[in-house]
């Protein structure tokens, strides 16, 4: 999320920039977009192109992490043979 002020940009330009970024992040996380949102991205392809390189490279939302199970809490003695 772009929190830095961008001097010289109008509120409308800021809005477009932020929305493009949010929509690109959503796509990266696997979420669906509405038809309007897809059209929005097509309309502002230039902004999309500029934002793509600024997206984080790591995975954002992959669900809960794998967890090990601790089995060795107590000893069990087997029958001596």
């Amino acid at each position, binding site marked *: *999320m*772009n*929190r830095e*002020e961008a001097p010289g940009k109008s*509120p409308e330009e*800021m*809005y477009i920039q*932020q*929305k493009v970024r*949010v*929509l690109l*992040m*959503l796509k990266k*996380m*696997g*979420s*669906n977009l*509405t038809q*309007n949102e897809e059209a929005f991205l097509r309309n502002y392809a230039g902004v999309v192109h500029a934002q793509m390189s600024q997206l*984080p490279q790591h995975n*954002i*939302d*992959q*669900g*809960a*992490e*794998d*967890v*090990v*199970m*601790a*089995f*060795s*809490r*107590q*000893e*069990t*003695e*087997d029958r001596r*043979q």
Partner: protein
Amino acid sequence: WLYYNIYQSYLFLLLSPLFHCPFPSLFSISPPFLLSPSFSHLSLLSASSPPDMEAQYTLTRAQRVRAAMFPETLVEGEAVLAAQKDPGQQTNVQQLAEPSQLLKTAIVHLINYQDDAELATRAVPELTKLLADEDAVVVNKAAMIVNQLTRKEASRRVLMSSPQMVAAVIRAMQNTGDMETARCAASVLHSLSHQREGLLAIFKSGGIPALVRMLSSPMESVLFYAITTLHNLLLHQEGAKMAVRLADGLQRMVPLLKKSNPKFLAITTDCLQLLSYGNQESKLIILANGGPEGLVFIMRNYNYEKLLWTTSRVLKVLSVCPSNKPAIVEAGGMQALGQHLTGSSQRLTQNCLWTLRNLSDAATKQEGLDGLLQVLVSQLGSDDVNMLTCATGILSNLTCNNSRNKALVTQCGGVEALIHAVLRAGEKEDVAEPAVCALRHLTSRHQDAELAQNAVRLHYGIPAIVKLLGQPHYWPVVKATVGLIRNLALCPVNQAPLRDAGAIPRLVNLLLKAHQDTQRHASSAQQTYQDGVRMEEIVEGCTGALHILARDPVNRGEIASMQTIPLFVQLLYSYVENVKRVSAGVLCELALDKQSAEMIDAEGASAPLMELLHSSNEGIATYAAAVLFRISEDKSSDYRKRVSVELTHSLFKHDPVAWEMVRPASGSDAPYSLGGVSTGCRRTTLLGRLPCPAIVHFIRCLGGLDWLMPLGCLKPIQYLSNLPLLQERTVA
């Protein structure tokens, strides 16, 4: 002579019914009585039979009886005529031959026993003195004699009943410089250790420290006698374990693992097991002396079954020790134990499996486990519940955060095998939980995750998995299952089968149940656990699964129709960051539908979403922004501008002191909200914590109090109206 006479009479007692003769009275035997080889006493038999023929018959019979009982009296070349008509059938005399010889032997032993005991009793005091002699040769000879005496039971018993003798032997063993003397003395103690009285005598005479010292002997036979005697003491003598530990027995035994005699090693490892079971200090001593490496070496390089079994038992004991565990893994323990899972020894296989299971949580990053993983997948087909429990548990841990292992298990049919294990597990949670966890690992975060997601469906796993959400709830299994369902839903082709299996209503009901539970305990500080699972985890898991299921339009409609939107909006206020993320995520998907977007807006989601824009979690901030964009599509441009303002500015960006005053103490998101709307979630009001200048600045940033109205924040306005400084600015 007397014993011999009695013995013969006993035989007649045995045999007379067979001869159809009345038993001759003992008192009719007139002393002195001598048995001649020709059995001339047989004239004592009944005189009623015809004299000539009968005499001939009984003489032959007598010869047969003699030959059966005393074969050593037969003259070389002498043979006894067989009496039976059918050579294949034994006569009564022949059948009684062996038992009568045993009886004879026992009586001879009885006669000799007394002799041996008397001899030993007379010799012990003298031998005791000689064992302490200054002359090494004398000591040596005395030791040899004592060793000879231990060969017979009677004399052995006399020796062990003499504490002075046992002490003398021990002293001789540890003080001598002569190897042969040491060997004889050690042999004596070894012989004595086969009886309880002997063990006690050795123990009481301080034999254990001496025997432990003998473990450093360069002589193999002394080593063998010492370790075997110590083994007998550890097995059968109370107090021996403590004594061995105190004598630094472990420090001397562990280096012996380098020896090459398999039987010696088997006894040594069994000693280690006896000493370390249930004793943490012993386990640490074994670790400090290189025990794990030595034991793993044995597992890798020997094939004597008993040795492998005893060694696996030691490893099993050490595998519950947090310090030993990584050392065993680093020494290659997983691979070494994995070599023995397909042999014919069931006890060895089972021990290796339990040990591997214990070690598995420390082996998630180990390489070279391909062979082990394949064997474990094949063992998932077993009907043995112990084998299933271990195989599923090991696979669950080895696939945890290890993309290579995940891919390998997926490629070798692990998904199908795990589904079958789940089906066979029934109510056995020890199998079901790790099996489902393993499937959950396989279906995410690796190159073949999609393959695994499809494989679950193709092998008819979806109905069985959804069924695990039913009652009775075993929460660890439920938690693992909702995570698996979430992963399965990532594959678009699985969405409809999951819906058809009834996943959505089950997830919603579980979510409601878990959320109600958290609300019930919200006022108290204690967290709610059921079967070791926090209900917040169930809330997170169910919401996360519904989030992914909501990517499908039909599922989306079904989820919204179950009146879930108010609950999801409430969850935005949760103090658990993951719950905030998944609830923002599911709302983001639901907001794709216009009707649901309006419902979300009507529930007042804007306020918490505005807060979440500032989350340090990128996922949360993105979902929150997306929901705000979607619910503001039909709003005025002024509203959209303010959303943009909120996106652009962070609160208190130009007033860091004020920000610090309201910043949460921990790394998690602050338990705060705008206003005091009670949703049952644990939080305090932000405005209640702000200093007045900060409040004024905050309001200026937002463009005045009247801006709060469209966002539905009535309560904060009421709160603010109570602050004297701001009364003049309060909107009615």
